[in-house]
């Protein structure tokens, strides 16, 4: 099972920092994911620091199984200071530790209860209440649940459930029930909606409910969706040992999922081995990059280093909507959950010509950076195989 996770946020109006903090990390070796959503007391910089500290500390505690999740959450709950003015704890949090089989441990303290949706029905999981030993008014809920393919989990800060509070239509705000209605209607309409789209939808709706569309609190929604992974393969660079061209071309051909080739020589190699012609557009370049070419059975064929470098830069900066080969590659990558790179290690001496711009990177380096950004920023599962 693949866990499609994303979080969308808006700040309280007139603030320049987010008071909610979301952090998530995949651990490919252990086939699991940990995510934390924390809401800092107040808003702006102060709340940002509080929530950021809470979330990152929890993640650090739990990763590498240093401290069991329940123990870690207890430590945080028992040690969060009390705000002098409001007499409540500095921040609230929800933490989830889930593996690819769907076994999830969830602990929440102070945040609205998460929503678990299966077949568009809301599930009511059992939980255990853990009372804080140091603060009487603090307790957390601990869940152990087993998820199935198609299940969704929605975590949000109270900015979502309390949005619209006090305005004419919703005196008590959207509340949990209102949010569930919104979610069910949306899922009825688009059963396969991605986590990034669904979380953005929640935020948009919450903002619309607020008077004058001005959020009175930080609003965050984190969505997890358990589904079959969409796999893709990017073949770039000729294999080090030319004798293996046929073997690797066969692996490429037999791969089930979407396929891309990045590199002119590589495209020729696949074309030769699989006996499939390449056709091109009647354009040389679009936006400073060579244009794409086409091959039967391959979803995308681009030039190599320049396109990969440009795509990496834009992924880093978050400009995802660009009209050139790199834009197409970005779309290809972001539409996948598990991305495999097959990277040829053969060097092209011509790339070392001093007359070439210094931006021409070594393929291995650019793939390394690409894998890192896809994994850390876009939560993809990435594997790299050198050949």
């Amino acid at each position: 099972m693949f866990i499609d996770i994303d979080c969308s946020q808006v700040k309280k109006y007139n603030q320049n920092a987010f008071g909610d903090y979301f952090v998530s990390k995949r651990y490919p070796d252990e086939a699991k994911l940990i995510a934390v959503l924390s809401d800092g007391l107040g808003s702006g910089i102060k709340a940002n620091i509080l929530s950021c500290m809470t979330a990152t500390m929890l993640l650090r505690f739990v990763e590498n199984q240093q401290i069991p999740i329940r123990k870690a959450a207890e430590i945080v709950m028992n040690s969060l200071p009390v705000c002098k003015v409001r007499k409540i704890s500095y921040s609230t949090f929800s933490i989830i530790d889930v593996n690819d089989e769907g076994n999830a441990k969830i602990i929440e303290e102070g945040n609205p209860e998460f929503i678990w949706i299966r077949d568009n029905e809301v599930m009511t999981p059992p939980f255990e209440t853990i009372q804080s030993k140091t603060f009487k008014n603090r307790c957390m809920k601990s869940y152990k649940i087993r998820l199935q393919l198609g299940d969704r989990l929605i975590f949000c800060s109270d900015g979502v459930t309390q949005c619209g509070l006090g305005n004419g239509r919703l005196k008590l705000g959207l509340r949990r029930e209102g949010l569930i209605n919104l979610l069910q209607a949306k899922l009825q309409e688009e059963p396969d909606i991605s986590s990034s789209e669904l979380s953005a939808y929640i935020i948009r709706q919450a903002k619309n409910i607020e008077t004058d569309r001005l959020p009175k609190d930080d609003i965050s929604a984190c969505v997890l969706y358990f589904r079959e992974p969409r796999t893709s393969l990017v073949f770039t660079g000729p294999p080090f040992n030319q004798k293996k061209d046929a073997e690797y071309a066969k692996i490429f051909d037999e791969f089930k999922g979407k396929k891309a080739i990045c590199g002119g020589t590589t495209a020729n190699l696949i074309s030769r081995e699989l006996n499939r012609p390449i056709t091109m557009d009647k354009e040389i370049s679009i936006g400073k990059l060579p244009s794409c070419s086409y091959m039967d059975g391959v979803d995308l064929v681009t030039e190599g280093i320049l396109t990969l470098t440009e795509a990496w830069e834009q992924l880093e900066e978050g400009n995802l909507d660009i009209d050139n080969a790199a834009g197409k590659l970005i779309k290809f990558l972001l539409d996948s959950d598990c991305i495999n790179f097959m990277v040829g290690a053969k060097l092209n001496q011509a790339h070392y010509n001093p007359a070439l711009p210094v931006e021409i990177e070594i393929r291995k380096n650019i793939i390394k950076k690409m894998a890192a950004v896809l994994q850390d920023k876009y939560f993809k599962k990435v594997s790299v195989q050198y050949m």
Partner: protein
Amino acid sequence: MEKISVKVCLGTTCFVMGSANLQELIDIVPAKYGDKVDVSGVPCLGLCATDWEFSKAPYVKVNNEVVKEATVEKVLNEIEKQLGKK
């Protein structure tokens, strides 16, 4: 008469060494020669890797003739030459 095929290499080396500037060929050749000449880009002609010691990218192939350090002018000359022969 057989068409003359012009292939512009769009591999990394050729592209940065100047084939990006050969778009003009695609625009002017059909206007000038009609359907006698066919111009297109190709992913890579593979010439820089074999010729690297004296890399003369960008490369363009006019039928089987390789134009090194190609410019619009050089390619047009080569087309003229081959058209004249026929």
